[in-house]
């Protein structure tokens, strides 16, 4: 049934007779395209074109369109065109194809590459101010929602907040413990290895304690949470935005900030200090194990050294930062989630942006706190 397509052109003086044969169907489009291209010059030369479709085997839209293109080429060159032998079952299709592609599309406007480049730079610069505006707007709306909750404490979604706390807090504990345990162990190992050369091994404990309590503990936990929970928040809110769930909430007279975002941010603010505390303990435990098995320091001495080296102030410096970092992560994650547009690609892009931006801001915030604590002498 399906046979190789052919286009026989017999030219007699001014008259050109075209007889397509075989299957003019989509699966043979490569052959068909070259056949049609080969026939084009002959059409331009002739005066009268006769298109005889009597021998056509199979025809579908692609084949019909290619024939129609030949037909239009001849007509636009001012030739007389006769189409004969149209089978009854293909007449409708040929008639249908005759109607399409009548409007010529406007050619894409030529663009100066320099201007395009400059336009991109300008857009990303204005995008940066938009980012700041979105961040501040989310901070403001959260503040307003918080005030509303203070006025009417029952409007806080306790169930939702507890559920989010379970997700971002409780379920994150195993991975946080594992990572921080390893971080503590690695720092201790490096300390023993390098300090041993000048006999200062016992200072390893100071290094592990101060570093983990003040800086690394909270920083690494915040980065983990941004990657783990911030991305989840963005993806959740983004897909809710895509499916018009957030619009549905607003039309029911509910504030999406109060219903969706406040419980999430509150949960994050509660979870991060707890996770930081657990993570710091895990890191100190990891450091202690390395001290015993690699540094040859007994646990009693490790604990005693730790007692001398660190103070509550060190712990405070670390833990005070945690809620602020949680707030930044929460705001970035939620505002990026609400900026998701209709496509799957935009959901992915916004999730990536959320994680990158919140990690960046967490590190910047850590730097600002370092300056602050140094200047108040903590």
């Amino acid at each position: 049934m399906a046979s190789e397509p052919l286009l026989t052109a017999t030219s007699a003086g001014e008259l050109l007779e075209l007889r397509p044969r075989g299957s003019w169907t989509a699966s043979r489009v490569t052959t068909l395209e070259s056949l049609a291209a080969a026939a084009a010059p002959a059409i331009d030369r002739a005066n009268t074109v006769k298109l005889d479709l009597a021998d056509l085997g199979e025809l579908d839209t692609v084949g019909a369109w290619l024939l129609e293109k030949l037909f239009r080429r001849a007509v636009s060159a001012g030739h007389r065109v006769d189409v004969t032998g149209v089978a009854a079952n293909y007449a409708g299709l040929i008639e249908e194809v005759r109607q399409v592609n009548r409007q010529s599309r406007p050619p894409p406007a030529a663009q100066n590459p320099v201007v395009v480049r400059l336009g991109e730079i300008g857009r990303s610069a204005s995008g940066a101010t938009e980012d700041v505006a979105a961040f501040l707007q989310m901070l403001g709306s959260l503040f307003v929602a918080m005030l509303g909750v203070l006025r009417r404490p029952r409007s806080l979604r306790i169930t939702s907040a507890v559920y989010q706390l379970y997700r971002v807090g409780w379920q994150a504990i195993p991975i946080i413990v594992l990572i921080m345990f390893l971080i503590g162990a690695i720092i201790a190992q490096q300390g023993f290895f390098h300090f041993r050369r000048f006999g200062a091994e016992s200072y390893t404990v100071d290094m592990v304690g101060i570093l983990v309590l003040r800086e690394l503990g909270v920083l690494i936990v915040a980065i983990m949470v941004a990657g783990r929970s911030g991305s989840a928040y963005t993806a959740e809110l983004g897909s809710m935005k895509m499916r018009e769930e957030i619009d549905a909430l607003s039309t029911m007279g509910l504030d999406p900030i109060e219903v969706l975002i406040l419980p999430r941010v509150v949960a994050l603010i509660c979870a991060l200090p707890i996770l930081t505390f657990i993570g710091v303990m895990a890191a100190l435990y990891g450091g202690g194990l390395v001290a015993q098995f690699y540094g040859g320091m007994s646990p009693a001495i490790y604990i005693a050294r730790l007692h001398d080296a660190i103070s509550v102030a060190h712990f405070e410096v670390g833990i005070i930062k945690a809620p602020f970092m949680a707030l930044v992560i929460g705001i970035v994650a939620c505002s990026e989630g609400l900026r998701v547009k209709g496509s799957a690609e935009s959901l992915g892009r916004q999730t990536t942006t959320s994680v990158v931006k919140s990690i960046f801001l967490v590190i910047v915030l850590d730097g600002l706190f370092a300056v602050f604590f140094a200047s108040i002498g903590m």
Partner: protein
Amino acid sequence: MPQAEQPAAIRVRDLVVGFGRQVVIDHLSLDVRKGEILGLVGASGGGKSVLMRTIIGLIPRRSGTIEVLGRPVGGVRDRRTQNIAGQWGILFQQGALFSSLTVRQNVQFPLRENLVLSEELMDEIAIAKLEMVGLAPGDADKFPSELSGGMIKRVALARALALDPQIVFLDEPTSGLDPIAAGDFDALIATLQKTLGLTVFMVTHDLASLNTVCDRVAALADGKIVAIGPMRELLQSEHPWVRAYFHGKRSQMLQPQAS
């Protein structure tokens, strides 16, 4: 050609599909003839979409055989099914357009993946298909998120037809459309079916489309086909569910206009 020799486009025998303990399709057999429009009706949640998705290989079956155009069908990732995939086009209920591609790219996608042809011809074919389903060429560069529900259905139909398939599966093509648009869509399907010689397998609740475009209607109840035939035969069916479906309050409302 006598009816007996005409091979069935889709042949389903003794199909069983279930999830967990629930059996959705229970020893179902169905033939869809070449070149006909078959409408499938059934209760909401009664397994119409499951049957369609099983035939196209998206849902695994427990037992039974499915043949499409004389060839057995396995799962979607089965090589045999992939060979048939060029022969069918599927219109999903929500359109299932690729959201990160424009309308034109969506229609071109099957062409690009399956055939070797020039960019120019591909553009022309895509625009031709879009115009055939009643869209303006100006819509070609829009993204799916910028389209209305009816336009999404039309683009999805254009994409289903991109490779000039022999069989088209339509999952509730007129749901969510206004009666005028639904009527246009029915007329469009009928025209395309006549011009392209398509076999159409249509899941629908739209009594008007069942009445106007379907050659035969199959009723699915309790996991089986309980009645199949032209609309007037189904209207006389004695099966209680079929009677309730076609002689219920809503269908009565249609009677004065329909007759």
